[in-house]
């Protein structure tokens, strides 16, 4: 397992329209990205567990090769600006990802 913060150069959340929240994780280099992708270390189930939401609320989870990025989009808890809103832009919902440990494959022991 590795800490996501050590592998990524961008970890962010933002509204994707008023009803969805999208997570972008951009990795530091292609090698790291390819390894995460090969191990499928990030997926809908990992994100659902991390945020404590049902997996069906994760609307998509995609690896995007051109940007060495993983992207997951989830249903917003409430539509943007509805009563109970805490983050209109959805830009500060990334904190749980900062503590996430991800699968790094079977050679963990050999890693520095």
């Amino acid at each position: 397992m590795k800490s996501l913060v050590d592998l990524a150069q961008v970890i962010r959340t933002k509204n994707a329209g008023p009803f969805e929240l999208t997570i972008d994780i951009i990795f530091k280099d292609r090698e790291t990205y390819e390894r995460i992708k090969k191990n499928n270390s990030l997926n809908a189930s990992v994100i659902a567990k991390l945020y404590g939401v049902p997996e069906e609320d994760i609307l998509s989870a995609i690896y995007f090769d051109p940007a060495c990025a993983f992207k997951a989009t989830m249903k917003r808890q409430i539509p943007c600006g509805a009563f109970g809103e805490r983050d209109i832009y959805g830009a500060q919902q990334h904190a749980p990802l900062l503590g996430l440990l991800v699968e790094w494959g079977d050679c963990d022991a050999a890693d520095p």
Partner: protein
Amino acid sequence: MKPLTLLSPTAILGYGFPDSSFERGLSFGPDVIAVDAGSTDPGPYYLGSGKSFVARGSVKRDLTYLLRAARSLRVPLLIGTAGGSGAKPHLEWCREIIEEVAYEEGLSFKMAVIPADVPKPYLKEALWDERVTPLGPVPALTEADISDSTYLVAQMGLEPLINALDNGADVILAGRSYDPAVFAAYAVWKGYPTGLALHLGKILECAAIAALPGSGSDCMVGFLEHDQFMVEPANASRRATVASVAAHTLYEKSNPYLLPGPGGSLDLYQCQFEQVTERRVAVRNSLFRPEDSYTLKVEGAKMVGYRVITIAGARDPRFIEHLDEIIEGVKERTRENFNWESGKYKLMFHVYGKNGVMGDLEPDPRAGHEVGIVIEAVAETQELAEVVLGFARSTMLHYGFPGRLSTAGNLAFPYSPSDFKVGEVYVYSVHHLITVKDPNELFPITFEEVRS
């Protein structure tokens, strides 16, 4: 052949740009200047109330530079989603600023104004005809949602803008528009491929946000050819990199490979990015996939009440320790005190320093040594919101809890008066797709000769 050169001055009209960047952008000899003014990010208030989320003075400042430059170079200026949300009052607000600048700067031009309002009877008919579908995890549309909306707008595609260009407009002021449309319309009008034009528009609409370091208030220049486009930030201290440009394709979207818009989708499955100079990136193989039926996104917002808030801090460790039960107790006392008003108001506590940002999603809801509390009441009338908030505030101030020593008061208020009338509260009421026969049918263009 010289590529088609497009200048995007800033991410949102009114966000500004450095003079030097703008001048450098102009030095490339742009064929068109375009700017997007819209966003749903700031929430439903702005569409619902008909107000701009950018200050008038900032928009006027940017428009002064843009109109001067466009008229002196004799190139078209396109403005998308006027006033931030692109409904009638936003469009009128921006039109007035343009006319004021024209008068002050001595500029004359032909302006196309393209409203994007959706008449309520039109949308109801579309609902009956089953031409309306929810966009994403959105409830099905009802007639009441339509009736209750203060403003309804549709995101126009390229067609109405091309129509305005065909008719010789120097300046195009558009209501709600698909963000890339003001950039792509000119390119497609000039015969460039729609896929490349739209993808370039996607990047340019956020200006230098796609650069490294990124900025929402600096210029980006696009160079379009028939088999590729290139982008370069106008400011020499920024670079476009494959990573910054590719990463921008992710931004605010659900699926980065397939980006739906009016009339079809932008398909980036085969798309390639290449670093051509230190500060410039080329992009190829962006494709447009037209759909058989032409769909437009419709947005609406409705008023649901009035909001009053108060801000307070708490420093007592015993109060903080018992905060959850205190909040439940205050809610309960408020419920009892105003039981005849039940269902007419909502009361909420935001506890900063504990879970104010993430609420139930907070993985670590431990309070710090002090907390900030925002108490919020939303009610059907302004008066009821004030009454409920005032009662909750005073109840919390003097609420008893186990081990209480500080019997003079539990809360530290930074202000007098302590309560703030925030005013009308809006929510999104419509976020749906509608199928249309003609891409122009909701966007009636008018032309005017603006005279200095």
